[in-house]
């Protein structure tokens, strides 16, 4: 404890203090004047983000409390990701929050609290720490999902999320307790060593339980059933945050967990096959079910389920414990998770904008958007095509990394599935493009974008395009993050 360097935990501490501080400020200021919350949050997040960037490149690395909490570049990369996502969500939700009837003050602090939970998950080296972070995030999301208390759909989504997420947490916790019973430790590294080549049914059960708990967060099929309903019911900015950051946090945990588990024979045998099958099913079903959707949020929900399948491919690529392949797969996941943030945030920001201006989430109400709001239409097109993996957008490079990593391991068939399904996904993505471009949208108002929304859209568009043409800087970051994990 003597050399416990609190300075290294600055981002976490700052986030905790700021979210509580903002909550208090929100209470102190009279309800009518809470517009100042927005710039405060933006600057708080920007400052933390800048520090995290600095920390990523030049900061010290450390493991706290004998590996309970890790402060490495892997965690740093994900912290940057969560902060960027939170920042974009806050920027895109400005108009939305201003229109809320009540409780405007708590929205931003809650976003920050959820971000803190995710940051803890990314750094967790112990199942208990991981669980604490996960619960902080999940419980915050209960509130955020049901934020509009007078809206039936939102309340329904909130209740559903509460029940299902609690059940999944219970399963996760059960898995942790079995593992603790088997190995006498909750620390991931110790568990891996203790399990060794044990393939008893109890170990397999525990592995499956843990996967199910994390699978819920990243909406893997068959743990995906909550996603469409909750994505549809939740306020759109919250949906975006849920789809982007909460999923990335799930992957952060999965990778750390998976990587350490690779030392155990049990996991290599059961986990690998299980994940391979789940990834294939997730990609196929997610994409096929997305095709008939008429609601943009449901469509994006299924698309994000399919995206989880693609990302999972990268995790599977980490199959043989050798440094080079570790880096290949993890690098792909990290890279893809980041560009997924930009692409999805672009799409959701447009959805937020349209929903706010027209009060509808139906795809048909995007009619003529190319004329009514050209920038929004362009960003929506670029975002969905990046999700589909069409060059020169970043999604193409990301998918190339994912699929080449897994093909390098000899799993060619899953790459086939991935490539073909991502081309099929173009069908429903282009459905949105078609509505925006080919129809005139008569009778619908012109809805140009302004201010923070415009900034978010331009920023996501440029980032998606630039990273698609010149991905090297982000790839280098992903490589150093991935290597820090292997050391």
């Amino acid at each position, binding site marked *: 404890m003597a050399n416990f360097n609190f300075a290294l935990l600055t981002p976490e501490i700052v986030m905790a203090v700021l979210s509580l501080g903002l909550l208090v400020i929100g209470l102190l200021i009279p309800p009518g004047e809470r517009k100042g919350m927005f710039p405060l949050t933006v600057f708080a997040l920007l400052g933390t983000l800048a520090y995290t960037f600095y920390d990523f490149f030049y900061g010290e690395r450390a493991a706290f409390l004998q590996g309970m909490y890790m402060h490495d570049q892997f965690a740093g990369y994900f912290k940057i990701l969560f902060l960027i996502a939170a920042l974009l969500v806050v920027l895109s939700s400005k108009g939305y929050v201003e229109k809320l009837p009540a409780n405007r003050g708590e929205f931003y602090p809650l976003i920050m609290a959820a971000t803190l939970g995710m940051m803890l998950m990314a750094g967790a080296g112990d199942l208990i720490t991981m669980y604490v972070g996960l619960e902080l995030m999940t419980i915050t999301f209960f509130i955020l999902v049901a934020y509009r208390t007078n809206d039936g759909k939102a309340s329904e989504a909130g209740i559903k999320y509460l029940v299902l997420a609690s059940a999944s947490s219970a399963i996760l916790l059960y898995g942790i307790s079995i593992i603790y019973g088997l190995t006498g430790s909750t620390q991931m590294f110790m568990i891996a060593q203790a399990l060794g080549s044990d393939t008893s049914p109890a170990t397999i059960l525990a592995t499956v339980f843990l996967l199910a708990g994390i699978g819920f967060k990243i909406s893997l099929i068959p743990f995906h059933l909550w996603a469409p309903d909750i994505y549809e019911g939740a306020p759109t900015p919250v949906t975006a945050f849920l789809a982007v950051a909460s999923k990335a946090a799930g992957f952060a945990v999965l990778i750390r967990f998976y990587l350490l588990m690779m030392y155990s024979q049990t996991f290599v045998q059961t986990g690998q096959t299980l994940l391979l099958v789940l990834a294939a099913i997730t990609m196929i079903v997610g994409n096929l079910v997305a095709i008939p959707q008429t609601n943009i949020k449901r469509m994006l929900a299924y698309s994000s389920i399919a995206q989880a399948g693609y990302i999972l491919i990268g995790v599977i690529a980490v199959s043989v414990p050798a440094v080079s392949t570790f880096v290949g797969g993890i*690098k792909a996941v990290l890279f893809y998770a980041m560009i997924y943030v930009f692409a999805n945030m672009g799409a959701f920001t447009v959805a937020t904008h349209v929903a706010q201006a027209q009060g509808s989430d139906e795809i048909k109400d995007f009619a003529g958007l*190319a*004329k009514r709001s050209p920038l929004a239409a362009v960003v929506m*097109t670029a975002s969905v*095509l990046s999700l589909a993996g*069409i*060059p*020169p957008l970043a999604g*193409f*490079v990301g998918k*190339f*990394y994912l*699929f*080449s990593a897994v*093909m*390098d391991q000899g799993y*060619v068939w899953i*790459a*086939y599935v991935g*490539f*073909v399904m*991502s*081309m*099929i996904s*173009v*069908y429903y993505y*282009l459905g949105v*493009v*078609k509505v925006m*471009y*080919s129809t005139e949208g008569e009778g619908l108002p012109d809805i140009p974008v302004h201010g923070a929304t415009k900034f978010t859209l331009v920023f996501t568009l440029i980032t998606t395009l630039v990273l698609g043409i*010149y*991905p*090297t800087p982000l*790839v*280098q970051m992903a*490589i150093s993050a991935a290597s820090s994990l292997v050391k």
Partner: protein
Amino acid sequence: MSNSFILPMTLLAPILALLIIVFLPREETKTIKIVAALGTFMALALSVYLFFAYDRSVGGMQFALTIPWIRDIGVNLGFGVDGISLPMLLLTNLIGFTAVYSSWNIENRVKDFFVLLLILITGVMGTFIATDLFIFFLCYEIVVIPIYIMVIIWGSTKRVSKEYAGMKLTIYLLIGSAFMLVAMVALYLNAANQLAAMGKGPTFMFAQLAQLHYDQSFQIVVFALFLFGFGSLISMFPFHSWSPDGYAGAPTAVSMIHAGVLKKIGGYGLIRLGVLVLPLGARFWAPVIAVLAIINILYAAFIALAQKDLKYVVGYSSVSHMGNVLLAIAALNMTSLDGAVAMMFAHGVMAALFFSMIGFVYEKTHTRNIADLGGLAHQMPRLATGFMIAGLAGLGLPGTVNFIAEFTIFNGVAKVMPVPAILAVIGIIFTAVYTLRVIANVLFGPRRSEWDHLKDIRGPELVPLVVLAFVIFGTGIFPNILFQVIDSGVYSSGLAKVLETVGQATIGGLF
């Protein structure tokens, strides 16, 4: 070499025009059109310069520029042209330039149209000048989406709706490219392992990929995947059905670029990747390609005979002509590959002219139904001239470059596969029948008073006719201009050595 920046400049010319257009006000349609014309003219002028500055006696990749791009996987931003890609580059810019003029009368959402058109031209151009497999694919897939958007906005709904046509075209090409991507990754990983054994980093450069040796079974599988992808693109039977529907739904400029150059990426890819990198795979699949090519030539020509819509006639005729290219590739000898490249060039120019003229006919008469038209030569002699030239080039009349190209192909194919060569020559008869039927029914016959109000093409509308007809006859009467370049590409690109290996493999008991 300071010359190495000419290719990136050629590629950037349309991008520059695009950026200017983005900042122009929506209403100033004339300015937008002029900027687009200038951008494509720049690219055309530069590629004409490249075409004549290319050192034919040296051959090989020239004007090459290689910049390390994505280091960890060995992607290089590599540009360069050789005798195979240079005619394709020239073709792209010829068609890009004339496509702008063929779209001169567009009035609906002009800005969006030219932005997408310029993206399209840049993408196609990038595909041909890339010397890196990754950049090649990147540029190829760039073109798919602008085409879709252009079809659904400015397309026309006749036999099939434009939404259907656009989606069919897009899905066919994308599914094809999914298989190509798997093949690309497999090829890359195989090469990377070989290079790693030699202590080198991975690469996507065509030249280096071609120097490595791949197992025969690996080549067969990977070539099959490429064949599926590139075959869909070049509308090889049975993956051809997107092509007539797509062209019919698309606006004129898209039909021109699609039939003129985009399809050629299929043939170009099969030569560049298929024959040069995976020769044993090519040898294995050659008989299959030959059979499918013959089906293309004859079956598509038969269907073209029965079409009522002008665009469908040209659509099926282009499927039929691509059969010749495929057959030439299947024959796997120097003469036939020479012919294949020439044929791609010749057909590109001819198809672009044809679609351009059909576009004007449709724009003025609002119909493409052959039965409704007739005697147009009375009212529109200049348009009729262009139509005639395109038709006669299509059926391979001597004096046009198409004749030279077809002749070379038949020469090359007859050496190794006499029967398919004869069948392919028979295809010309059908081509003549449907082309002459169309020309007779549309242009000639008694004067019809309902078309008296039509104005002949004039001003900017004449540009496609003048430029493309000039190229058809120029290279038709002086084929050496074109063939010197192609020869230097085919003979110095290592193809001779590759084909020798293929020959040995045959002796080795592959068949």
